[in-house]
């Protein structure tokens, strides 16, 4: 039981990396989403999982209760969630547009900005 937190986070990151390395555009972008979730959890856990009370002061009190959670990682993760969301939405739309234009969902087929193909998959490089 105690190992399940780091295990789940590690699994999340590993799955995200695996999906991101895929040649399929859609899987790649969703890999970013999974990887992002994993990294957010990592950041959150680095603030130590333990105290369970939200870092909100009671009415009338002028300090946080003793058992309150660490507010700093929460603030960071909150920012990361929103930024990650914006990135993903843009990534999805971009991937859709690329797939639509190239008539292919293979990331390796997107070569419009690469030099013309040389030997095999290698681009031609200007010889000295």
């Amino acid at each position, binding site marked *: 039981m105690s190992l399940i*937190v*780091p295990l*789940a*986070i590690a*699994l*999340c990151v*590993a*799955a*995200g990396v*695996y999906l991101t*390395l*895929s*040649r*399929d555009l*859609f899987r*790649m972008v*969703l890999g970013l989403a*999974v990887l992002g*979730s994993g990294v957010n959890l*990592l950041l*959150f856990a680095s*603030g*130590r*999982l*333990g105290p*369970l009370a*939200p*870092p*909100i*002061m009671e009415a009338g009190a002028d*300090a*946080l209760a003793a058992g*309150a*959670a660490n*507010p*700093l990682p*929460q603030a960071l*993760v*909150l*920012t990361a969630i*929103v*930024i990650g*969301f*914006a*990135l993903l939405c843009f990534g999805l*739309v971009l991937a*859709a*547009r690329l797939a*639509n*234009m190239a008539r292919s*969902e*293979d*990331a*390796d087929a*997107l070569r419009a900005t690469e*030099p013309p193909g040389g030997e095999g998959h*290698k*681009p031609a*490089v200007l010889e*000295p």
Partner: protein
Amino acid sequence: MSGTAGAATPTGPAYVGLLALPVAGFGLLVWGLLHHSLPWALTLEWVPSLGLDAAFRVDGLAAQMLALITGIGALVFVYAHGYLDHEPRRDRLLAILALFMLAMVGAVSADSVILLFLFWELTSLTSFLLVGWNHADPHARAGARQALLITMAGGLALLGGLILLAQMAGTWTLSGIVAAAPGLRADPRLPAALALVMLGAFTKSAQFPFHFWLPNAMSAPTPVSAYLHSATMVKLGIYLLARLDPAFNDLPFWEFSLVGVGTLTAVWAAALALRERDLKRILARTTVSALGILVLLVGLPSPSAGLAVAAFMFAHALYKAPLFMVAGNIDHATGTRSIDHLMGLRQVMPWTAAVAILAGISMAGLPMSFGFIAKDVITSAKAEAELLALVSHATVLVNATVVAVAGVAAVRVFWGRPEFPRARVREVPWSMRLPPLLIALLALEFEFLPALADPLLLAAAQAISPGLDAGVLSASYRFDNTLTALEITLGLGLLLFLFWDRLHALGHRIHWLDRYGPAAAYEHALHGLARLAAAHTRLLQHGRLSGYLRGTLAALLALACVMLWLEAPPLAWPAPPPEQAVAWSVALVLIAAGAVAALTLRDRLALLMASGLVGYGSAVLFLFAGAPDLAFTQFAVETVLVVVAATALRHFRGEAPRLEEPRLANALFALLAGAGVFLLLLPLAALPPDTALSDWFAAHSLEAAHGRNVVNVIIVDFRGLDTLGEIAVVAASLLAALPLLAGLRNRNHAA
């Protein structure tokens, strides 16, 4: 070269102003020499916090260089007026020449090593611009690039050497380093520092194996060759070595390096001179040879070697600059510099022929010339030093070649049956006749009136060899030894001159020189660099996104491995589960299930659901771990994301195609990344958290920002500017997505 077509370039005020620079500089120098005794010093505060001063110091050696720079400079400026009479960009060339002159003046008068380096590099840069002047000519471009690469690489070495020397001596001035030198003998860094300085000097003064850039720099217009590549810039390396010589001349390392490299350069360049047919290139080879002799002389430990360096440096500038101008005159008048096509020019170019004879006599070291005096002091210096017999014999050979080249430049092309129709070739204008004539006559005058040149020579010699006493100069005008040596040299030189064409044919047959010489090594290195860049670009810039990601991940993982290995944090099990064990378990199982499912699912909608599962799982975890704000945000984001993704999904096929990819390698990367995160998390529970920032935010949240929700206060108050940036990012991504969406819609309509 410039041809006769087109109108002559008018002489504007810019030309007059530029010409005034060297003339004024020379006048100022003469006035200073007459009214103030050497050395002159000037120190301005520059960067006091680093102990750096802008220090200038002019002693006898620097004054001699300054005389050459401004005096020959003035005449070169006049000469360039005639030589470039049809060149519309003449004033621009002269402006660069003036910049070069200022850099040279700075380099020889700087006492601060940093200033010396800056001016040194500025001379390399201006030399690059001047060599590549005829930029339409590929040879000129290649020559300019070669000169720049070699002298700049040497300049870097020089900077390293000077900084090392300055650190060892604890001062940033050259005079300070020389004064502190006796205390540096035991320092283990000294050989490295001196080797670096020598590398800088050898590249600048075209010593073996860097000698090949100088002949290739002959693509420059002739005024540039006469000024930079014979009289001044290439002497800068010699100048620096001579400057440091009083400090290190009794070190065997210093002596052997200079004598060895100097001799090798002199012999090698003399031999290569025999393989050339281009008059300018022949002269350039003998310049390299003379520079080798100068390095050899600097390396000799005897005090009279200083006098020999000063005299030969002066004599060489005074005969080589006019000879280059002679080559330029011939080129200007006939359109060729190949000695095969040049014969009997004496009849049509009598003035140029006279200059060539005067300078040639000095070059050959015949009596009644300044070159003779130089040769004389060199002979005395060599007699005083215990030279290896090999070095002595080598210098005789070199001198014989120099005599032969003097014959080629002064006799061969001017005598004999003219090959040119006389009507087509005319003598050059006065502005091209007078400057070389003046320099050559000056050399003659110094022979008959030594009182004019002697004080300057002696001051320069004493700057190189402080032990030299003033009587040496007049005493060394005893010509017995020299006359004997001269007979041998002249005899050998005459033989070389007579058999020049046959020797040339012989030398031309030695093909391995072209394939394995240092010049070929330079070409190989240059091409190798380009090939390396091409191979490296092919390897890394292959245009495949997943490959880039793998590369980036590999670098990150390697970095993490190094850090884990260096730090080796204590590994510990995390804290026991809190009260909400059930809720946590549910959340974590959701996350894990989503992650595993995402790996295997190929149906895109199902994949979207699986990734949503990870997000909702995280939200549940946040909710039960004291972070309700995070939970609500994550729930909202996941929901909206599913809507956006579903829209995008319309443009993909329903199921991901099975593409060929390195699944095993990808899985390995994923496993390594997961393991890294796991290892990162394990020691966390054992380490005490640093709550300094969190406590500060919690303490000031109510009092400073009147908020009770600390997380919100951090975001909107304490880090408000960051949040503004975040909002800007979201807005920007929306703006960027809009045209993409519009494009998608249009395409669908069209389809």
